[in-house]
């Protein structure tokens, strides 16, 4: 299969998956028994008439398939509608939250991918060493424990115990920054940033470390490394060659992890009260704010699908021995 054919096929699959995902989201929201207004009626906050009006406003009185078509159309034109509980466009809620999450997680992921991969390669090369053993146990602890547990432990030690760093939110209550530059480039922000950043780095370190370590271990006995050694290459150079050969699974995994980023650490955002997309989603679910839920879940699904596609393409492009069709 030519690369072009492979690309077209993969993209088509990704598009189909996106459509099916949004349909599943739609279905699970609509099939669920209650809707947010019935609760309000029961409590007497709204009259039946007002509810009818509201339902009309949100298009909830139309036949289900019309609602579905409109919903799909709106999603793909990125019009997420109006929040049911906050009476403002969902975009206004979601986009800043998305930014906050990205600012926290992307740097953390990049840092941990680079550092842990290098450490993992070194550990694999020195299989059986103290460094390897300790590295595996420590990263396994942080990878295995739920991230909110790590977060809580960090909070107890560094915020409540030692009182070094703030425990809550993204900025001090008094700060009122304007624009991205002020928001993200201040000492106040940095202080709030350190703990959640550390928790994320620790959480993801285990996967990259083990993956890099295993890839290097797998290649260590290989014939081609023996030939490199026979050529007189120094140990560090041999390790570099083994590392280069292990890069492919790491890059692929990095792409996949990036896709799963938003859904991976929802509890972390809750623990640190980080105003990100995960926390926004949890609140929207608690408030039964459908449009916000739809938008947030859609963004999360889209990220996974797009990054999966990226990973496939990266794999096909990076490995000189693999023809695209074999992926």
């Amino acid at each position, binding site marked *: 299969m030519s690369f072009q054919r492979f690309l077209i096929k993969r993209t088509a699959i990704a598009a*189909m998956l996106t459509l099916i995902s949004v349909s599943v989201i739609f279905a699970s929201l609509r099939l669920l028994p209650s809707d947010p207004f019935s609760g309000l009626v029961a409590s007497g906050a709204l009259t039946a008439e007002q509810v009818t009006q509201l339902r009309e406003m949100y298009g909830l009185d139309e036949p289900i398939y019309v609602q579905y078509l409109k919903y799909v159309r709106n999603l793909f034109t990125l019009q997420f509608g109006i929040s049911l509980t906050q009476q403002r466009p969902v975009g206004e809620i979601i986009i800043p939250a998305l930014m906050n999450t990205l600012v926290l997680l992307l740097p953390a992921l990049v840092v941990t991918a680079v550092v842990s991969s290098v450490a993992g390669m070194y550990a694999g090369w020195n299989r059986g060493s103290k460094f390897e053993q300790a590295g595996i146990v420590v990263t396994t602890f942080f990878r295995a424990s739920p991230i909110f547990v790590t977060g809580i432990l960090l909070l107890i030690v560094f915020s*409540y115990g030692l009182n070094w760093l703030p425990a809550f939110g993204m900025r001090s209550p008094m700060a009122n920054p304007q624009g991205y530059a002020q928001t993200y480039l201040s000492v106040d922000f940095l202080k709030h940033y350190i703990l959640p950043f550390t928790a994320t780095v620790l959480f993801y370190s285990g996967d990259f470390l083990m993956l890099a370590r295993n890839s290097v271990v797998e290649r260590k*006995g290989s014939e081609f490394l023996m030939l490199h050694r026979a050529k007189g290459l120094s140990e560090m150079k041999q390790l570099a060659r083994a590392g280069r050969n292990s890069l492919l699974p790491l890059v692929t995994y990095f792409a996949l992890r990036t896709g799963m980023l938003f859904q991976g650490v929802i509890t972390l955002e809750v623990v640190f009260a980080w105003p990100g997309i995960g926390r926004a989603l949890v609140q929207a679910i608690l408030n039964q704010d459908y449009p916000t839920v739809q938008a947030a879940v859609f963004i999360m699904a889209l990220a996974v699908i797009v990054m999966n596609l990226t990973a496939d393409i990266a794999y096909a492009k990076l490995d000189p021995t693999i023809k695209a069709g074999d992926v």
Partner: protein
Amino acid sequence: MSGYSLDAETARDRLSSEFGRAKETMAVVWQDTGAKFGLVILASFVFIGLFGPYIAPYHPIEDTLRRQGAMMRLTAPSGKALLGTTSFGKDVLSQFLAGARPTLIIGLFGGIGTGILGFLVGLTSGYFGGRIDEFLMRLTDLTFALPLLPMALLILSFVSPNVWLITAVLVIFLWKMPARVIRSEVMTVKERTFVKSARARGAGHLRTMFLHVAPNVLGIGFLYTAYAVGWSIVAGASLAFLGFGDPTTTSWGRMLQQVFRSGAIRVAWWWVLPPAFGIAAVTTSVFLVGRAFEEIVNPELQTEEQ
């Protein structure tokens, strides 16, 4: 179909040899220090999960501790409450002992369910290939795309959560992981000569699949079942922490949720640490044992011995 299906004698023979292998494997895993610690922790966890409520000094929810008539709110560990009390005057130790059980149920059954479902899907997908494979793999792609926690939250926000429902929801979202790995493993095993050979000797698909392919990927299957136990515990605890656990029982995740919501996290370290370390120790143990096991079942990690 008689000759094409499995026969009891073969199955028995296979089982006994699998059992022998399992014993040998455990002996090797036991060599690994990390795994040894892990196994000890897991054994104590299972013990607490089974008998915790009976050895707890108080009822975790109904008993309110009082001293001189006053409710003991957020008191530090003392003779009366070895691990202190919660802000409602409940005994933390009792909650800790009772809270292991839901964690155990979700972990064990979530893990086993995930392992079995994933194994079967992966086996079918990898063995038959073609359209069946295409369909099943797109299905796994879909479950990858739909975010686990939000979807589980959504479902649980409308149905009142109980331990078994949570377990089922987790299995629905977790089976994809073992399925993918098993599938790729099956595709390698399928190409091996003895599988072709079995077909040439007249064995049907069912027989080839379950007697020749499956036993040779069983190790990986167990490995991912073990990991799935870990994932289930983490996911179950996360749900409980977000307030979507079973409201009628005490679990470690729920304990953390209560201490966090009540704001007592700032002071009541005795309330935070037992469930936090409980979860971390159990999941870490599962993974450590899994890692040691992986060194045995993953042939590619054995380059040095050859």
